């Protein structure tokens, strides 16, 4: 079995490394030093770790103030509270005012499992993606997390990053180069395209393996940037494979699937399936159990893809 990683570790290591060379880098947290893995950052750079206590609105507003005064703040907090509680600060103080703030939403999707719908962050992509001037990134593995943190720091302007705690295998080779706004084609195919992000990328790759047995060659795209969307890659997928299945650890409304569908409808209409949480508050269950429950598994993706291929002909 492949080794599995918690992307928060790569996040914390990358943040510390860029903070060593760039004194503008700060971390801003909401009593989330442990859950955001920035305890060591605080030890190394005590002046540059700002803990506002349990106060997400102030956390984001304060980060905007830091940014407008020359700092590069990374706000590190559980994604449901960062995006849900501070959404207006994200819109007005960060995006509208074009403050150079990086928002790192920790443990997104269904990662909090049994802690329930208040702690699930399955709306964060829809919320942040709908705000003008936002860049939205969902890294799939530690390598991409590391590169995305550096790219976010170099990019001028608001960025929201989803930093997963669900254990994921490495899906990229060492020569992978993450670029904001560019999809990575991890496997080519002509019969259908699976477009996934974050935790779902490795599962989409496994689904593509399963589809081979059915004589289906699936293309797999890692859509690590949700906004701006790589519409060229989507258009090519539509034209060349004639069908698209999107997979995300998010509600099926307004996230990756929504973004891809918006592009497909305008550019080249093909049949689609959007896999995710079907617009309900999840029942009680562990994160892994919930992913199974909602069919967000290699088998679930395979089934949806096969059904779509069969519907196509």
């Amino acid at each position, binding site marked *: 079995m492949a080794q599995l990683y918690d992307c928060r570790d790569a996040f914390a290591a990358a943040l510390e490394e860029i903070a060593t060379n760039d004194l503008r880098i700060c971390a801003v947290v909401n*009593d989330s030093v*442990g859950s955001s893995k920035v305890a060591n950052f605080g030890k190394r750079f005590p002046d540059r770790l700002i*803990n506002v*206590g*349990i*106060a997400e609105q102030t956390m984001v507003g304060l980060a905007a103030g830091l940014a407008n005064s020359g700092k590069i703040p990374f706000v590190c907090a559980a994604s449901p*509270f960062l995006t849900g509680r501070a959404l207006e600060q994200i819109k007005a103080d960060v995006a509208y005012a074009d403050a150079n703030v990086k928002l790192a939403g920790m443990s997104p999707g269904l990662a909090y*499992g*049994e802690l329930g719908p*208040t702690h699930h962050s399955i709306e964060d992509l829809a919320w942040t993606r709908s705000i003008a001037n936002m860049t939205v990134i969902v890294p799939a593995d530690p390598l991409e997390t590391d590169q995305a943190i550096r790219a976010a720091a170099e990019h001028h302007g608001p960025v929201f990053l989803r930093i997963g705690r669900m254990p994921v295998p490495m899906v990229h080779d060492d020569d992978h180069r993450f670029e904001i706004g560019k999809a990575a084609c991890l496997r080519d195919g002509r019969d259908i395209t699976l477009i996934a992000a974050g935790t779902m990328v490795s599962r989409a790759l496994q689904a593509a393996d399963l589809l081979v047995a059915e004589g289906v060659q699936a293309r797999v795209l890692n859509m690590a940037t949700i906004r701006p969307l790589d519409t060229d890659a989507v258009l090519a997928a539509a034209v060349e494979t004639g069908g698209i299945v999107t997979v995300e650890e998010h509600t099926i409304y307004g996230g990756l699937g929504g973004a891809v569908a918006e592009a497909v409808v305008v550019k080249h209409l093909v049949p689609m399936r959007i896999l995710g949480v079907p617009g309900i508050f999840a029942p009680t269950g562990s994160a892994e159990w919930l992913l199974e429950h909602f069919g967000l598994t290699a088998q679930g993706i395979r089934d949806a893809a096969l059904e779509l291929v069969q519907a196509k002909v």
Partner: protein
Amino acid sequence: MRLVDTQHVERLRTLATAIRRRDLQMVYDAKLGHIGGDFSDIDILVALYFSVLRVDPNKPNNPDRDRFILSKGHSAGALYTTLAYRGFIPLDELNTFAQPLSRLNGHPDRKKVPGVETNTGPLGHGLPVAVGCAVAAKIDGAAWRTFVLTGDGELQEGSNWEAALSAAHYKLDNLTVIIDRNGLQQGDFTERTMHLDPLAEKWRAFGWSVREVNGHDYAALLDVFDQLPFEWGRPNCIIAHTHKGQGVSFMRDRPAWHHRVPNAEEYAQALQELDAQGGEHGSAL
């Protein structure tokens, strides 16, 4: 001050030890929970549910019931166990805590669990909702009261202070906030994370009538609840001085026990300590 019924106080204390024991077992089995915060507020919950709140487990939706809102929703384990001992849910159901499709989610859901008044989990939500309940009772001229239990770290959320303004503005003497002042939050002590003191003065400045009490002393708790409302026309604030992890020596006042799950050895030791306090007898009550 009312005469303290020592037998009743002893009964509550024993019950609380049994509830701590059962809660610990539940968290240990589920490998999930917030035992430190649970043990901090169980004495308050027991005082409320077994001596103060006018609630009927057979009529959980009775419109005339007192409302209790657990704003620190991460203490769901303490609430579920207390609700079970009070007869709102079967004791057996505690075995399902956090299991697939259970009603007993990691944070309380009013659509699933009788006796739960609102869904909490994100901090700083309970008080605004409680203010709404209390305003509704005032509109109706109803006698039922609203109680809300918050954490102390939780008070760093601005929403609490907005709601505190509203409650004073609407003269909600039918509303009581109880603050679980254990001095700890998730990562550290509150005063090292973000100062809250002087806390009583803050609530007074917001127009509330404030009392401070030892949150593990039943005689003192019952006495203070007995004095409600403290002043006509003012909302009531009870600052309950507590210890996170109260009841188990190695958990008490230790930040790490915010959401740590005991290993087998720690579990055995904790059970032993609780049993020495009479925990195994509580279920017979």
